């Protein structure tokens, strides 16, 4: 399992880690019931503060994705999210693929597309709703 | 392990001075014996009192050298942050340094005179033990004030080379002052025994000058206490 945290993207590292763990769970890189690295181990490997790892694990436990067993470590919960969520993500990605193809046909460069996505993503949900 | 640190810091200075003093005494007595044979006691003891004068000069220079160092010097060499971050008080740091210095100063007084005693005994003209003891006590009891002065200077004066310059300067200044002004308080003549020596026999008298030595030690102690207070106030 390879995680990569980027300190300069404007997104807290623990959120990035949470996303990447979710992604790993959805794509099957992490199996149900599998154990994640300990907080200290992962912190040393990624060279980030252990508080980042701890917060990510704690939030994921709150969301029902992880189970933190005292003394043993963090495990992907067995009674996990249903297949429908995996489908959900796969459908979204297909839609994105179509959109990107269309934008490319309209003449936008990949870099411009990426920047536009990032700019839009930085708006919190409220503003998007207002438009 | 502050004692160990103090030893490591003064080891070279101490051993060099010890060797110089001991060698000087051994050689001096050996030739003195040859000079005054067979047994011209008075001349022999006169030569010994001259030896003491040289011993005193070298001893005073040595203990002033040993008194150098400490936190203020460490500021110049860059290690004061390390020493001051240790969980020990500044008074403790200075006290250990002083204790190491005092022990070395005593050794520098005892060993040369022990050498004189041994060499003279080996040569068949043993010095009276009482005389040896007298000279040593005078040297250390009266002379430690020079060590204390050096410690005080090292707590006040910054700069690796400025502090010894000031300390040695003060030694010379004191020598001149004592000679010109404070004749009756002449520390030099106390330490060398010049005050008390009997000009006929060149022997030191039976009664040890406790008052003079005590006064000198009190001054030494006050200087050391002053050094501690100065160090406590200082900023690093």
């Amino acid at each position, binding site marked *: 399992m390879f995680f990569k945290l980027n300190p*300069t993207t404007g997104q*807290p590292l623990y959120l990035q880690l949470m996303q990447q763990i979710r992604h790993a769970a959805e794509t099957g890189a992490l199996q149900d019931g599998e154990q994640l690295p300990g907080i200290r181990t992962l912190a040393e490997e990624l060279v980030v503060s252990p508080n980042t790892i701890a917060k990510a694990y704690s939030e994921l436990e709150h969301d029902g994705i992880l189970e933190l067993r005292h003394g043993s470590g963090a495990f992907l919960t067995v009674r996990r999210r249903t297949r429908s969520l995996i489908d959900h993500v796969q459908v979204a990605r297909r839609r994105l693929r179509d959109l990107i193809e269309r934008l490319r046909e309209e003449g936008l460069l990949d870099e411009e597309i990426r920047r536009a996505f990032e700019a839009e993503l930085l*708006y919190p949900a409220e503003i998007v709703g207002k438009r | *392990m502050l004692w160990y640190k103090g030893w490591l810091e003064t080891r070279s200075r101490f051993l060099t001075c010890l060797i110089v003093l001991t060698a000087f005494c051994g050689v001096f007595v050996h030739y003195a014996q040859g000079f005054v044979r067979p047994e011209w006691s008075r001349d022999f003891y006169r030569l010994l009192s001259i030896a003491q004068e040289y011993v005193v000069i070298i001893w005073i220079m040595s203990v002033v050298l040993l008194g150098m160092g400490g936190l203020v010097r460490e500021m110049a060499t860059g290690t004061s*942050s*390390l020493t001051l971050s240790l969980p020990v008080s500044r008074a403790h740091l200075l006290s250990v340094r002083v204790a190491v210095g005092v022990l070395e100063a005593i050794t520098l007084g005892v060993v040369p005179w022990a050498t004189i005693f041994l060499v003279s005994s080996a040569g068949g003209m043993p010095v009276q033990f009482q005389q040896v003891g007298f000279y040593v006590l005078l040297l250390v009891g009266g002379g430690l004030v020079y060590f204390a002065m050096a410690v005080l200077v090292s707590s006040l004066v910054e700069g690796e080379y400025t502090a010894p310059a000031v300390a040695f300067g003060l030694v010379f200044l004191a020598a001149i002052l004592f000679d010109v002004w404070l004749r009756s308080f002449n520390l030099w003549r106390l330490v060398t025994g010049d005050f008390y020596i009997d000009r006929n026999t060149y022997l030191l008298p039976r009664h040890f000058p406790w008052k003079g030595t005590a006064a000198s030690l009190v001054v030494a102690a006050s200087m050391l206490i002053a050094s501690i207070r100065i160090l406590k106030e200082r*900023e690093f």
Partner: protein
Amino acid sequence: MTNTPVILTRDLTKSYASLKAVQGLNLSVEPNCITAFLGQNGAGKSTTIKMLLGMIRPSSGDGTVLGKRITDAGENREMRRKVAYVAENKPLYGYMSVEQTVRFASSFYPDWRTDVANRLLSQYKLPHRRKVKSLSKGMRTKLALLLAFARRPDLLILDEPSEGLDPVGIEHLLQTLVAQSAEGVSIFFSSHQIAEVERIADHVCILDNGRLLVNASLDRLRQSYRRIDLVFPFPPPEREFRIVGVEKIRINGNEMSVFASMNSEAVVERARNLKVVSVEVAPVGLRDIFLETVKEN
């Protein structure tokens, strides 16, 4: 576990004849966190640290470290038993060998861990018998840091720890800091290496001219600071954008660049209400946050 700050200062001030090195510092460093202390040379970082450790007396104000008053010599000494500190110049006694240095340091601290010391000695490849004065600068830096890392203190204070280390050494340093933090050691370090700080710090304090300008969690800074680049069909009305959170505005013709420490959504909304042609919102890295904050001051 109590949440009393490991370092807490109240209006800490240090003035010298001609300048104020530290002015009214109110620092609060949380336990079990990695807190970075940023500032230019001469900003007052080292002076602050020295006041905390009793080497310098504050002109006014007070503080505690691990709950012990910094201005009380006895309490400060007691506190130093549980604090590991490595000064910027990585001080070591030149006349001691590596072995003697380690033995010397270990004798003062009950939290010394011999197994860790031995592991680090071989990991850093430090020759046991060599005198410190004969070591290379990199080796001296590693030894000085080893004296702190071979302990399990409550608080680790480091002044520019990565100075004198090559990139591999810096990586080891960061991993060691992270490992120490995982064991419950609170870490307070000053650094010029903003990239390194950005990777491992939980919390950031920015000091400039003796004043604390920023004291926030790095995550909050990441989420709040934004650079908003706007293009209008006319020269942009600057005063419309002087709202809460906007730190700096730069205008070039019809283009406007807004640097905001928070409230970036309000800036975007105002821009849209003013018929903006192009909006680009970008995150701001710690280096830019630091530079802009310090320049403003």
